[in-house]
């Protein structure tokens, strides 16, 4: 072949090539690809598949493959740990939202995930168990950190939906039991998209109030439901809000057998919304009864002491032969005051009081005199033995009415003949 022909073939080859293509660099090409990918309305749909090869690198970078359940197809996914709001693991079916991109550096096509949602009951339950274990390990369920709620709260923060039966039940039972409480109510969605942010907002609000303004206790409650309905109450951020609340929290979800993470984290777990009201406020009747018991008890003790005192005085009379006027007066006045006070309180006067009366009566010497006895005194002291008497001694005799002085003429039947 002559050089002329070679060069003309080359020329026509080159001419043949150049009209089809402009030359671009790799990065320019990838830019074109990514721009085209951006045209996909990524926010308008979710991609559903099964997670596999789930990893977290350097505690920041999350990666996993999303597998098509029917066809052999995988989508490589990438996100950061702070974007990941739910606990996921291999085998879980999820729906993701994000935007596809080719990563220039490694030439890899990846889905940049912005949201992940587990789907199906099984996935939800697995996610729930994962979070539950995590919180338990962090000590969220520890009994020791749970605070007691005040016995007589003045202000209660109520977080629930006004459309829920829970709201009505709680308020009704509370009204039946107790009064004078200030209820601050924040209406929130208890399920659906709005639930978690609204509940978190309510917790922030109450916790931000000053000490004088904030409620004494918070009540987070809703009716029963399946795992999907209760999602907000199993949400990790809500559980953290309950744990971190400076105000003690009572949580009540549905019925006895319903459980939620908030139940475990709360300071008090009530079985139902009505039960929550029972735990938060006391019962008027019970408190009234307790007060009556206390008053009866103090009355009884006081009675005992007065009785003791009175008996002491009785014994003193026997020992010393007299009862100091003032002690007698004192006992009488004490008893009067006591009876007066007691009669204003609906308590029964019991046997002890009656016996007290009897003792007092015994102590009153004038009653004895009334029966015909007299009190003989020598030198001011009550005479009991004749042996101390001498013939000619002067004695003072006190009768029931009046008194007289006398001179001893004889002792024990013996009289001395006086030479007049």
């Amino acid at each position: 072949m002559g050089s002329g022909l070679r060069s003309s073939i080359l020329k026509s080859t080159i001419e043949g090539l150049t009209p089809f293509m402009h030359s671009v660099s790799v990065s320019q090409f990838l830019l074109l690809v990514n721009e085209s990918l951006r045209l996909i309305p990524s926010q308008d749909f979710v991609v559903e598949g099964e997670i596999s090869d789930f990893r977290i690198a350097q505690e920041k970078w999350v990666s996993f493959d999303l597998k098509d359940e029917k066809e052999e197809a995988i989508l490589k996914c990438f996100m950061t740990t702070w974007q990941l709001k739910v606990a996921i693991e291999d085998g879980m079916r999820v729906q993701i939202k994000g935007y596809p991109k080719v990563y220039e550096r490694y030439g890899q096509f990846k889905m940049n995930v912005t949201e992940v949602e587990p789907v199906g009951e099984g996935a939800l339950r697995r996610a729930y168990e994962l979070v539950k274990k995590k919180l338990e390990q962090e000590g969220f369920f520890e009994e020791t950190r749970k605070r007691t709620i005040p016995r007589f709260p003045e202000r209660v923060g109520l977080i629930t939906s006004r459309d829920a039966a829970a709201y009505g039940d709680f308020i009704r039972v509370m009204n039946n039991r107790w009064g004078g409480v200030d209820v601050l109510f924040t209406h929130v969605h208890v399920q659906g998209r709005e639930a978690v942010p609204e509940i978190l907002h309510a917790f922030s609000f109450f916790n931000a109030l000053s000490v004088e303004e904030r409620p004494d206790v918070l009540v987070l409650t809703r009716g029963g439901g399946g795992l999907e309905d209760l999602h907000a109450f199993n949400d990790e951020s809500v559980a953290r809000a309950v744990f971190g609340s400076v105000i003690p929290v009572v949580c009540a979800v549905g019925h006895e057998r319903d459980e939620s993470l908030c139940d475990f984290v709360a300071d008090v777990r009530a079985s139902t919304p009505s039960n929550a009201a029972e735990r938060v406020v006391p019962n008027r009747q019970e408190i009234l009864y307790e007060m009556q018991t206390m008053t009866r008890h103090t009355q009884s003790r006081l009675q005992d002491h007065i009785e003791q005192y009175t008996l002491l005085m009785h014994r003193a009379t026997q020992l010393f032969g007299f009862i100091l006027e003032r002690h007698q007066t004192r006992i009488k006045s004490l008893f009067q005051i006591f009876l007066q006070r007691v009669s204003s309180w609906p308590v029964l006067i019991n046997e002890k009081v009656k016996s007290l009366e009897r003792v007092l009566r015994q102590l009153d010497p004038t009653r004895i005199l009334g029966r015909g006895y007299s009190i003989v005194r020598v030198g001011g002291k009550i005479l009991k033995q004749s042996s101390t008497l001498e013939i000619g001694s002067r004695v003072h005799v006190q009768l029931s009415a009046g008194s007289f002085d006398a001179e001893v003429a004889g002792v024990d039947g013996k009289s001395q003949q006086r030479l007049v």
Partner: protein
Amino acid sequence: MSPKKKSTNFTTAFEELEQITAWFDSEESLDLDEGLKKFERGLLIADQLKKKLEEVQNTVQEIKLKFQDI
């Protein structure tokens, strides 16, 4: 947001009643004058608390929280 009403303070009064009751149990032989004083104070508190118990109403105030767009 108004502060909680402190005037009631059921809790303080109730605790005082409990203290008085405990006092009566603690002494072997108590001073009768003091005993009578404490007893009278106890009855006074009990009367006040009883009146509080007769208060039937709870108040429900709805707080409208403004939720920002998420």
